């Protein structure tokens, strides 16, 4: 029952808060803060309860599958719920200063709460259609945030985002229809228990739809303009959290609902797309002149890392220690990317406030005026490059080790190449920041600079605290990734 209350706080709380923000107007940020505090407490309760009694399951309305919707907070879900509340909290602290005008304030606070609620709903849902509704809510709030950006460029980016996302939704929904046709249920566990001739096509369609939503290469064209064009605190939410929802859905489909419908070749294709994302995103990031565009292309590349897991967890290595390492490494990578990418976008937010630009040339010498946030940027960049000590390092280390253990070293080498590219594209903003030139800046409160620093330190701490994260991720993990010999 405690778990159910905690889940209610995390699911209904943000939605109620969004309505509260809509009505509160000027006091919107206060309402959001209350919801965030309650949400953080609920995450702690869920985490603790899950480690003691295993994944927490709720049958909404008491119905249960197949008629009703089942929710389950497993390790994967609780990890993302925790990452989401931490990132939301940090964004809150910066956004409170950034969104001061009536329009920005009135749109941002309800949208950000809805975005958080939709993310939470997706992480714990076990129902294909419910996941679809959650994803729609998530996408629309994300689009609203992109449209909040200034100028016609932002509106164009938002429109492109909507068109891509709708395409993805429709294709995903077509797959869901086929699943319902073949299985007569939408519940992930019930789908896993049966088999249907429609599975391959359904999985293919749902994967294509979700790949668009997750901006998996080559469906990523909408992401860089959207994430670079949105107001920076919103970019932090969009880049750190939103694409992970589609990723979690893909993981649930491939490894929990339809593990039998995924031939090795298909697993390799997913990883190959991931590799394409790593190389393309990295090379494009090298060529950008504006910080936020570098960060957006970096997100394209970092999302690619997550898909290298597919042939390592599935396929021949399923159920071995290597698969469990790849699973944990990938999810830890997703968490640390969330923390570190939010940190660098919040740095961008502070710098744009201070100097009115995110061109690399204009950032020159900023480290003297704003040392704290520049240090935070450096720390976060270390995690994003995958250097120790950081969550990004542990993530890459675990996945690379798995690839060598399982005799698939090629995927490990792709990760190494991605790390080199990240080092190269982060070198340019870092070199600018620490250049010996006096910048002209408006004063920024030190306390605000501490916000991205806290996130960057959290990303680094994930590298030290990888064992609790690993234990968390083993709770309710699919048989593939449980790390027990076959």
């Amino acid at each position, binding site marked *: 029952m405690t778990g*159910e*209350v905690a*889940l*209610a706080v995390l699911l*209904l709380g943000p*939605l*109620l808060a*969004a*309505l509260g923000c*809509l*009505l509160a*107007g000027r006091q919107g940020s206060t309402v959001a803060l209350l919801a965030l505090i309650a949400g953080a407490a609920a995450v702690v309760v869920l985490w603790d309860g899950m480690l003691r009694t295993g994944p927490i399951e*709720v*049958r*909404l*309305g*008491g*119905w249960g599958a*197949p*008629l*009703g*919707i089942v929710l389950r907070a497993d390790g994967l879900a609780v990890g993302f719920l925790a990452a989401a509340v931490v990132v939301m909290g940090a964004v809150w602290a910066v956004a409170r200063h950034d969104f001061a*005008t*009536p*329009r920005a304030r*009135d*749109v941002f606070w*309800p*949208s950000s709460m*809805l975005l958080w*609620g*939709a993310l939470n*709903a997706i992480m714990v849902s076990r129902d294909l*259609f*419910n996941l679809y*509704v959650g994803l*729609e*809510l998530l996408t*629309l*709030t994300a*689009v*609203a945030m992109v*449209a*909040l950006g200034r100028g016609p460029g932002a*509106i164009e980016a*938002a429109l492109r985002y909507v068109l891509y996302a709708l395409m993805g939704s429709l294709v995903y929904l*077509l797959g869901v229809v*086929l699943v*319902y*046709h*073949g*299985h*007569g*249920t939408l519940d992930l566990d019930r789908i896993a228990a*049966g088999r*249907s*001739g*429609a599975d391959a*096509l359904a999985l293919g*369609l749902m994967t294509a739809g979700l790949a668009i939503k997750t901006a998996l290469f080559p469906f990523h064209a909408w992401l860089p303009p959207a994430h670079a064009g949105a107001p920076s605190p919103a970019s932090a939410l969009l880049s750190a959290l939103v694409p992970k929802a589609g990723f979690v859905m893909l993981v649930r489909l491939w490894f929990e609902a339809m593990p039998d419908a995924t031939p090795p070749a298909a697993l390799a294709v997913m990883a190959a797309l991931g590799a394409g994302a790593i190389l393309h995103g990295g090379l494009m990031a090298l060529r950008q002149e504006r910080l936020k565009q570098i960060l957006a292309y970096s997100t394209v590349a970092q999302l690619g890392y997550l898909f290298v897991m597919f042939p390592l967890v599935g396929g021949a290595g399923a159920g071995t220690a290597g698969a469990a390492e790849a699973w944990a490494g990938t999810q830890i990578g997703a968490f640390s990317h969330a923390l570190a990418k939010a940190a660098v976008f919040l740095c961008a937010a502070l710098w744009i406030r201070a100097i009115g630009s995110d061109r690399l040339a204009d950032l020159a010498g900023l480290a003297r005026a704003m040392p704290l946030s520049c240090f935070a940027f450096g720390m976060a960049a270390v995690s994003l490059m995958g250097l120790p000590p950081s969550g990004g390092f542990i993530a890459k280390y675990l996945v690379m080790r798995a690839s060598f253990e399982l005799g698939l070293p090629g995927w490990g080498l792709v990760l190494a190449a991605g790390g080199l590219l990240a080092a190269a594209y982060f070198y340019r903003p870092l070199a600018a920041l620490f250049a010996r030139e006096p910048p002209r800046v408006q004063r920024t409160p030190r306390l605000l600079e501490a916000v991205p620093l806290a996130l960057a330190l959290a990303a680094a701490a994930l590298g030290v605290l990888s064992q609790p994260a690993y234990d968390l991720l083993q709770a309710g993990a699919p048989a593939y990734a449980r790390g027990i010999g076959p």
Partner: protein
Amino acid sequence: MTVLFDLVLCALMLLAALAAIGGRGLFRATVFFVAYGITVALAWVRLGAIDVALAEAAIGAGLTGLLLLGAVARLRRAGAPEFPVRAGLVPALAAAGVAGATGWVALRVPGAGGLWTEAGEALPLSGVENPVTAVLLNFRAWDTLLESIVLLAALLAVWALAREEEWEAPVGPPLHARPGGVLEGMARLLPPVGIVVGVFLVWAGASQPGGAFQGGTVLAAVGLIAALAGLVALPRPDSGSWRTALAAGPAVFLLVGASGLALGGLLLFPPDWAKAMILTVEVFLTLSIAATLALLVLGPPQPRRMP
């Protein structure tokens, strides 16, 4: 005879769809899109899904058509060049491929059957007699709750399109109906009828096809006609009473859902109280859906320029 009707309906549906993307300009595309929506609604009737047919006709053809017509008119006012609405070869082939594969699999793979038996058994406990309403507001209430909030998210996205200095302006384009003209006459005549139909659709939803979404759409249409004729003043996006109307439905739904925790579970409707709880939710949801849809169609706030 019915086979013939179905064949003609299918042919009309395809023709309307082809005409809509056939490259004869935006206005024609919009008109055929509305025609397509009506044929699809008829198809839902033939499939026995009256609730879906109502929603498709009201939202798919009606409100969406209105939105598209508004967009066409705006483009013309702005002097935008007419651009071709034509499907490219690659997307057309891809769409045909997906449709073909889906159709082939759907015909070849035996269906598992829906959940008719389960829904039928649970229906007496749901508090309503219409199985569609039971699914929407009880068995899968969480979906519907999120859907009602999706509308609000869409409205926020539309409002985000306004410029900062436009936030003080009323929503929607400047409207000028001729006093005493046809539109104004219609706008005085239709609302009483529309309100009765809208309320009936919500009330009937418990036992027959209908419900908050359909009823809300009718009420939104009534409000829009009155607004187009200049009979009601358009609100500003920061209007407190309108925001209350937007939030009331989802808020009541959320609170009723949370109260389930005290009754044994999240979103739980005990059979004895289910009908009262569901009707309460539906009444407020109808209000919010009507307000949200009307504001969505009107669009972001726009400054009124003096002529």
